[in-house]
């Protein structure tokens, strides 16, 4: 085992032996060895290409709702009444500023109220 590996193993064992919630973090000898030292990193998020299943009002669903969140957010909901969906749509418009035109709201509610949640 290399010296570094031994030191790491010793540090792990020491840490595991201390039950305290707030034990001091190990002292740093050099910033270069610090696992939190400044650096750049990135991730690639998956894109979501799913669309709402066909049905009356689907264009409004894909045009408005899918702009901000995946269709899964709607399609994983339990069976909700039209009134419950109306409250959700009202919240999306008034609080989260979804720019849904008044005349498109009925189509969205028709679509949502007709959803039959799957398994």
């Amino acid at each position: 085992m290399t010296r570094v590996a031994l030191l790491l193993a010793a540090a792990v064992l020491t840490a595991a032996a201390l039950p305290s919630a707030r034990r001091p973090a190990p002292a740093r000898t050099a910033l270069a060895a610090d696992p939190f030292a400044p650096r750049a990193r990135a991730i690639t998020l998956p894109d979501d290409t799913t669309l709402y299943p066909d049905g009356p009002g689907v264009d409004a669903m894909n045009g408005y709702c899918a702009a901000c969140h995946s269709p899964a957010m709607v399609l994983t909901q339990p069976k909700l009444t039209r009134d419950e969906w109306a409250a959700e749509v009202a919240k999306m418009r008034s609080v989260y500023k979804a720019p849904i035109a008044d005349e498109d709201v009925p189509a969205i509610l028709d679509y949502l109220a007709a959803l039959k949640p799957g398994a």
Partner: protein
Amino acid sequence: MFPRRTILTGAAAVAAAPTFGQTANLRLPGGPSLRPLAARFADKRGMIVQRVRPPLLETPFEVFADGVFTPNDRFFVRWHWADIPTSIDTRSWSVKLRGAVERPQALSYAALLRLPRTEIAAVNQCSGNSRGLFQPRVAGGEWAHGAMGNARWTGVRLRDVLALVGVRAGAVTVRFGGADQPIVPDGPKFLKSLSIDHALSEDVLIAFGMNGAPLPILNGAPLRLIVPGWFSTYWVKALNDIEVLTGPDDNFWMAKAYKIPANPLADVAPGMKDYPTVPIGRMPPRSFITAPRYGAKLAAGAPLSIEGVAFGGDCGLRSVEVSADGGASWAPATLGQDYGPYSFRRFSAALAAPAARGARTLLARATNVQGVAQPMKPNWNPSGYQRSCVEPVRVEI
């Protein structure tokens, strides 16, 4: 019509697509219960995909059977708005410190690293964890129990950072913001606040480390507020702004969202209106049986071994009791290693072999050091917040 985000086609979409294949069954009452399980999703693996954009990723329940700390690549993910940071550079990251402070400034990540470090083990749990189990069902992220995790958080104390800039007399509230942004003009930016006393307490950290490694980007790298004992909504991710206020915070996310009925269990009768509400805050105790698994078929005549994980909420865990007869009788469980008052703690119990074959309901009930015990009856509120009841596990002998 609002322009839909461009749908990627071709090789780029294939390369970035999450690897779905398996399905997770969350067993939510009335469904839908099936969710895709992503083999990989950015820097995560084996996660239940509640929603790709903005990401809502749930930790599969079996992960909690494995130990006390939740691995970084299995830790749950929740963002409010779809504009979230995907690349970070801590050579140029800084946190604005402003408002009622003597020396407003932008504190660089490098300068923050030079402050005294500390580490705390703490459960991070979404306010809506287990929402999908509410009955009657409620709208929202339909989580089972996997919108929680436990980690060792490494960072600096918020109060040390506030001491650098000097909090002025008259400070009442400290408000926190991150690099995530609304994607709709005028949408309310996600901001959360703590009282000045809470912000200056010794347990509140600004963390850069999680289980000994840098925070995953999806869990709020490079800096995340750590509020042990409090629900995750306060644990602001990708922290880059701290503002000391001289009054209460009336921003939407404090004044309107994340409100619960003003009683200890956050419990009202379905359909009730116009009851007093308060911002959600401290966590109550919870416990989860991780073995046997729900629906397991167990051999008759063998001792019944029960294992699980529990936490005290906003204080330590005092005890866990288990029952193999639906609550008619209870036996104390043995608690595992104590990693501090805010951490998960394992429990185990070996009960006598059940006398009869058939269906059995296993229960675990946690009590914290303040004497608060999990209720048998589930709470209900229209937002699906703060579920904390005893969770039955049905098995066959």
